[in-house]
Each structure stands twice: as structure tokens, then as C-alpha cells.
């Protein structure tokens, strides 16, 4: 890691001597150095939605042109007449109908048969691999999104650069680059019922830590209070979605609304991350209606509302859905599906090369399957993540983001317009 001379001067030689060389402290000081007062809007933003529990890609982006799909799923296949056709071979689950307009205007794409080179069917391992970006290696400490932030310093001028919505920082954002976990935007900062108490506590703690000298505690508190201050100016309590956007009730809608808020408030958000769960449909999955249909309806509604709300701003935004693996091609004895291999992801936003199902479709024939039962992986998820980082966020080197792999343009599926 290289530390610029400027940071040494800024941080003060005395601190370096008394603290010993604390690399992370220096790294964070480097992030904080030279923050511009105004953050231009129009910076690219990536929003990641993790469908935890392994979404059934085959019922989300349905290969209705394959007879094997209907043969293997007598009870849970989505009936042809209800499918929102995309290209004659694939179609959207009817619950995702609100997204059809985005397909038409070429800002929605799907990537099929994407997944991990590792064959694990454990939720835990597969989620871990997808977030660390190192399939097969369990001991990786940080996530790929954080590693991107560590190595690309250009946007490291705001505490809101990388934000996870939820109570804890997920693996994907764990690591030495600063990132925030925000459970609720309106409650971020000091919590107290009255504003006066909140302000008093904020002032008092800020002052307490101001005297804490240098080091990680001091720099972290400065970052934290800067974030509180920026958010206060943006005033999230007054937020109303634009263009008549109507977010569905529930956690996912609320989270996407808050992400839209944060993007519009120009606090420098570059990567947002959120979870949505309930995809582990072993039992009674349903077809055009039912359990999975209800989850997809919430997802489709929330994404459509987000797109509506951001309007013109979507030209700088890419939303990516991801899930740890797909599900078995054949339905099980409980009208559900079990853990499989490849799945489908969706991308939407202005920079997306939309109106297409990307990636190579391996087919559902017996000999085309992975281990005789699952959709085979034809796109390593790192190639898609790598393409988005490079072509959308402008990452310059991927070797450090995906150690031991380094996605190459030759393998990109063409998800981002160039």
C-alpha cells in the first residue's frame, strides 16, 4: 500500500511516532485527505440486491422455449400464457410485469446461467464466496466491494461511499475501506426522541472525540459526525418519492426508497447494498401465483418504483440482483425445488445494455446439466462483477479485487454499454 507524502504531513509526524505505524489508521487518513466541498451528481452508482436463500432463476427468468422446463416441473412451471415474453425463448415471471417497460426501453437485462465455479450447495458457503469474490477460499477476510474501495481511491471523499442497508455490515463490504451499515436513514446518528437532545448528544460526543487526538477512534468519529451532518442537511424525514413512484410496503420497498434518497441527496454514494430474503422455496413454491410469485411481486414492484422515483438519475445507476445459487431443474416431492447451481441475475439502469438475456444459455437437456440435475454455470459471477466495476464504476485494476482470478474483458458478457 502506498501512502502519499501529503497524508504524512496532514496526519502529523508526532502521531506516527507515538502510535507506531498503524497501517489502517494511515489508510483511513489517506481516504480522508483532500475531500472536496461539493460532490458532483452524475457519479456512477451501483446498487446490489442480494436475494438470500437462492432464488429459482428458472421461475424468475423463465426459459419457456425449452420443453424440458415444462416436463420437469409439472406442478410449479409458470404457464406459458401467463409469462411476460421477452425474446420468444425467455420470459419474465408474471409478478415482474412492472419491469417489462424497462426491457422495452433497453434499460433492463437478465443474465442467465451465472454462478460460482465452486459446486457447493450450502447457502452459507455459497453466499460467502459470492461476497468475498473468492469461490472455494473460506478464509478471505474482506468482501470484493470493499476491496474495490480499498484500491480505487478516486471517490474516497465521503463517508457515504459504500453503504449497506441493515443492522450489520455484510461480508461483501467488510474490510479496511470505510463503509457504513445503516439500518434506518432517519435514525442514523444519535438516537433520542427530541431533536434538542439529539443535537446536544451529537455536539457533546463530537467534542469529546475531537480531543481524542489522532488514531482510528478519532478519524472514525470525525467520519461519523461528518456523515450525520451531511444527512441532516439532506433531511431524510422530508423525503417524498418523485414521479408518483409507489414503493410496495415491507422492508425491501423501504430500503430501496432510502437508497433513492441517498442517491438524490448527493452525499457521494457509490455502492449500496441490501438484502432481501425468502427465496429458499423447498416447499410449495407455487407457479404464476403462490409463495415465489409473492416474493417476486414485491421485488418487481420495488424495482419499478425505484426506477420511477429516480427518473433521470437512473442514467448513472446500475441495479444488480444476485443470489448464491439456483435451484434444481426438476421440482421435488413437496412442490418446491432444492439447492441447485447456476441462477439468473437482473440488471437495470441507464448504463445497462438492456433488452437482452445475456450470457450463454447451456440448455436444460440431461447432458447439458451440472451433475445431471442443475443448470450449468456458463458465466463466472466474477466476470459480471468485474465488468460492472470496470465499465460502470471505472475500476482500473481487478487483480486486487478478485485475487487469483482477475476477470478479463474477453469474458465479459457485455452487460454495460460501452
Amino acid at each position, binding site marked *: 500500500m502506498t501512502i502519499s507524502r501529503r497524508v504524512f504531513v496532514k496526519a502529523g509526524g508526532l502521531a506516527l511516532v507515538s502510535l507506531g505505524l498503524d497501517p489502517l489508521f494511515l489508510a483511513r487518513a489517506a481516504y480522508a485527505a483532500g475531500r472536496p466541498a461539493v460532490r458532483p451528481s452524475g457519479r456512477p452508482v451501483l446498487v446490489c440486491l442480494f436475494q438470500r436463500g437462492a432464488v429459482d432463476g428458472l421461475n424468475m427468468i423463465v426459459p419457456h422455449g425449452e420443453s424440458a422446463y415444462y416436463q420437469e416441473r409439472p406442478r410449479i412451471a409458470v404457464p406459458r400464457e401467463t409469462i411476460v415474453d421477452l425474446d420468444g425463448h425467455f420470459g419474465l415471471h408474471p409478478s415482474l410485469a412492472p419491469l417489462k417497460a424497462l426491457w422495452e426501453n433497453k434499460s433492463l437485462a437478465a443474465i442467465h446461467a451465472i454462478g460460482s465455479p465452486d459446486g457447493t450447495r450450502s447457502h452459507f458457503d455459497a453466499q460467502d464466496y459470492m461476497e468475498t469474490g473468492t469461490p472455494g477460499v473460506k478464509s478471505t477476510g474482506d468482501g470484493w466491494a470493499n476491496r474495490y474501495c480499498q484500491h480505487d481511491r478516486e471517490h474516497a471523499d465521503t463517508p457515504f461511499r459504500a453503504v449497506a442497508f441493515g443492522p450489520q455490515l455484510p461480508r461483501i463490504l467488510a474490510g479496511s475501506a470505510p463503509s457504513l451499515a445503516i439500518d434506518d436513514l432517519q435514525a442514523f446518528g444519535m438516537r*433520542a426522541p427530541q431533536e434538542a437532545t439529539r443535537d446536544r448528544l451529537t455536539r457533546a460526543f463530537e467534542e469529546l472525540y475531537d480531543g481524542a487526538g489522532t488514531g482510528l477512534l*478519532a478519524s472514525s468519529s470525525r467520519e461519523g459526525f461528518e456523515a450525520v451532518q451531511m444527512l441532516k442537511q439532506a433531511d431524510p424525514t422530508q423525503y417524498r418519492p418523485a414521479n408518483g413512484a409507489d414503493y410496495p410496503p415491507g422492508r425491501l420497498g423501504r430500503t430501496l426508497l432510502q437508497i433513492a434518497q441517498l442517491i438524490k441527496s448527493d452525499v457521494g454514494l457509490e455502492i449500496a447494498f441490501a438484502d432481501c430474503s425468502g427465496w429458499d422455496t423447498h416447499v*410449495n413454491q407455487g407457479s404464476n401465483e403462490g409463495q415465489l410469485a*409473492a416474493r417476486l*411481486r414485491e421485488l418487481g414492484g420495488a424495482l419499478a418504483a425505484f426506477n420511477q422515483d429516480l427518473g433521470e438519475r437512473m442514467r448513472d445507476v446500475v441495479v444488480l440482483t444476485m443470489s448464491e445459487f439456483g435451484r434444481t431443474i426438476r421440482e421435488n416431492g413437496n412442490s418446491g425445488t432444492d439447492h441447485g447451481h447456476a441462477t439468473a441475475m437482473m440488471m437495470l439502469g441507464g448504463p445497462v445494455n438492456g433488452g437482452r438475456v445475456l450470457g450463454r444459455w447451456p440448455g436444460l437437456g440431461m447432458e447439458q446439466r451440472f451433475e445431471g440435475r442443475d443448470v450449468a454455470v456458463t458465466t463466472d459471477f466474477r466476470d459480471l462483477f468485474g465488468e460492472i466495476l470496470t465499465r460502470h464504476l471505472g475500476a482500473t485494476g481487478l487483480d486486487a479485487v478478485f485475487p487469483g482470478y482477475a476477470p478479463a474483458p474477453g469474458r465479459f458478457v457485455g452487460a454495460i454499454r460501452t
Partner: protein
Amino acid sequence: MHFIVLFALAVQMPSAAHALTPRDSAFHALNRLAYGARPGEADSVARNGVMRWIERQLDPDHIDDSQLAERERQFKILDYDRADLAQRFQEARRERQRTQREGPHPLTPSPAGEGERKPMREFRELGGELQQLAVVRAAISERQLREVMVDFWTNHFNVFVGKGADRFLLPSYIEETIRPRVLGRFEDLLIATAQSPAMLFYLDNAQSVAPGSAPPQRQLLLRRQRFGMNEPPGDRRRRQPTGINENYARELLELHTLGVDGGYTQQDIIEVARIFTGWSIERPERGAGFVFHDWAHDGGTKHVFGLTVHGAGEDEGIRLLKFLAMQPATIHHVSAKLCARFVADEPPDGCIDAAVGAWQRTHGDIRAVLRAIFTSPDFWSAQAVRTKVKTPFEFVVSAVRAAGVEPDNTPQLAQLVARLGEPLYQQPAPTGYAETESHWVNSGALLARMNAAVMIAKECSSIAPTEDHSQLVDAIDQKLLAGTMSAHTRSVILEQLNDLNDPEQARALAVGLALGGPDFQRQ
């Protein structure tokens, strides 16, 4: 014997601890070997001699802990064994599947929460109890060092509670595998974790079998198939593991013993995995115990670390674990990690060398290793004292102890720990949580600490309300910080109290600021 040890310590002390008053030394020891000082505790430990207190903590069986025993009786989770918990979990799951089968609820898409059925909610509550029990034990046990070591080893041999059967295997892992061995011999702890159902499941060794091997029943089935009897379709066939799984072998070398730079190769990992083939769980879904499946064991010759291993079945693994426990790389790796916990994030060589020496002399007696660390000059040096930042767990527990809060059985305090970024038993990676501050100090987590401090301060019983602000801040300095409050902290708190006339309000604010401020974050 006891006398001689104390004498030896007394001789070593002065040169190292020259800058510390007896009270400072006691406060330092309480910050590191315990979860901080309760009000007045630094003084009482100083009065009786800090080295005497340390020796007592190293011998916890002779410390009365009846108050904790009383509290533990209120935790239902301790009444259930592994099989009970497995049964409760399976029932809860069946119940959930049954309600799912009865029909989807398209209008209530929320997968958890309101729609959740009672048995699953009850099972989750037991999980919450397990976390809160850790907080209660750390807060009120008199055997403080033992609780610190429970936390250390649980983290070193991390198992993620959210992975499948570990939801019900983890409680017995804590109670039966870790807790009885935290101050014993490292090799005993290593073997116990290797044979624990929780670890066997977590790192997949339970399904590591020699390629081509099959259980006796399955061979029977195959024979029947050959005679035209059909196997029922479905999952049974797929669930049969078909080869070695390297996960445990890799983490055993990289994390539990030699360390990432311990000088082993991928081939070593494979050989170690072969040695552990057949180490499994009898019936994981029923919460049964360790079993060695001879049929699944790779009977071939393995070459690893200069050893040639074959034909000894289960004993091959035991011999390997004993070998690993005494390897220089292991001794150094684990000693350095202990020093990172007790001395400094980047521990100096002196204390590591002392720990390594004690390990070699005593064949890995954890007590002796700890004693070597606590008596090394590095432990008492100015570079060590009050320079480490408390982990989320240490912060919450030490705040509770200092403020005299009686921890209840609700998961509230455990949830606070989670909000600060390190939820108990919920680190998915086998690395456990890191021992260095950079992993838990960040802006969001720091704001969460401040909020947690304000919350805990509301229940403070150790500071009496008073109208005299200066007296109030003095009391806080003495009782919460053992007299180490900085002049800056003092002046900021006093300034904030200026316009507050209500003594209760003033106390809550002052205690909250003190606990959430920078002085209390350090240990």
C-alpha cells in the same frame, strides 16, 4: 509452591511496572484479564496485590461463583442437551413446512416475523438466550479470566450458528467442548473441537469420506439394485458424500494451528484431509455425537510433515492433532494471537517469546502460557496500558459492569453487541472475529457505541445523582474509569451539564458521555 510463584512475580514486576501506581496496575489487569473493573474493584485488587489477584484468576476452580450459578439456573437453554435441541428444531421446521404446504399467503410476503409459527419462534428465542447467557456470564462471573478465555477460544475455534445443524449443535459446543477446557492443555482443546459435532458439521468433515467408500447399508442397497430392486428416487442418493472434503483440514492448519504462514502446502492439506476421513457425526439431524466410520476412512498411507501415517484408523487423527499442537509454527501463531488479545494489537516479540517458552516447557499448558504473558514486561509497559480499543463485546460488558447494571435474561444486551458489529456466534467465516481494532472501529460502529452508552447509562446504579456537577464527574471518574478520565473529557462533560438542573438527567447524560467517550473505549 504458591509462595514461590508469587515471589518470582514480585521480583519481575518493579522493573517493568515502574510508571504504574498499584491502582493503575490493578485497573490494567482488570481491563485485560477481566471485563473491566466494577466500581471500587481497582482499589480492592490493588490493596490485596494485583499479582495475587492474577494468580487467583488463573486458578478459577477455587473462586466461589455461586451468584453466577444461581443466575444460570434461569436460563432454559442449559436444561436442554444436543438431542433435545435437535428435536425441538426439527419439530419447529416440520411445523413451518406444514403451514407452508397448507397454502401460500400471497398477501403477506414477509418470510419471517409476523407469520412465523410458535415452535420456530421459541427455538429462535432459545438462540437469543444463548447469546444473552454469554453476556451475563461475562458480566457477573467472579471467574473473569475464565470467561475471557471462553470468548477467546470460542472465537479461535469459530463455529457459525447459522449454518444448518449448528443451530442446535452450538450450545453443547460452548458448554461441553469449549468451557471445560479453556485453561487446560491446548492439545486437549484441539482434539475436543476436532471431535465436536458442531465443528465436524461447520467445516464439513462429517461428510469427508475416502473416494469410492460407501456405508454398509448402502452397499446392501447397491447389491439389491443389481438384483432388480429399485431404489426410491429422490434425495437419498445425492446426500451420500462421495469423496474427501478439505475444508476442515485447511482451516485446521491455517487457523487453528500452524497459521497462514505455517509452511504447509496444498498436498499437506489433502494428506491431512485423508487422515480425517471417517471422522463424522452419528446422526447430525438428531444431535448425536462424534463417530468414527471405519468404512469411510482412507486406509492408504499418508505422508505429511515428515510423518508416515497408515493403518491406525481414528488414532491417526489424534496423533496428528497432538503433533500439530507442539509444532513451533502453531506455538508461535497461537501465542502471538493470545498476546494480541492481552497485550497489544501488534504484540512485541518479548511477550510472544515468553509465551512460546512456557508452551514448550509445559507441553502447551494454557495457564502457564498466560502466566508468562502476564508476567512479561511487555504486558505492563506504557505502550500496552490503555492502548487497546475494546471489542464490541468487551465494551458492552465492561459498561454494564462499571454502571452496575443488572443484566437480565432478555436478549437486549446481546443485541447491543450485535449492533456494534460483532454479533455473538454469528461470524460466518472460520477466521472468527479479528483481534485488531481496525475491524471493529469504524464510523457507523462508533456512533452505535455512543448510542449504546446512552442506553446503558439510563440504568446506571453505581453513581448517585447529585446537584453538584463537579462531584458527579469526580464520582464517574473514580467509579467508571478508576481515575483515568482525561482533562478534556472532564471539561466537555461539565460544560454539557451546565444548564441541567435535574440531578437524574445530569447523571444520565454525564454517565452516557463518559461511557460513550474515548476514555472508556480504551483498555
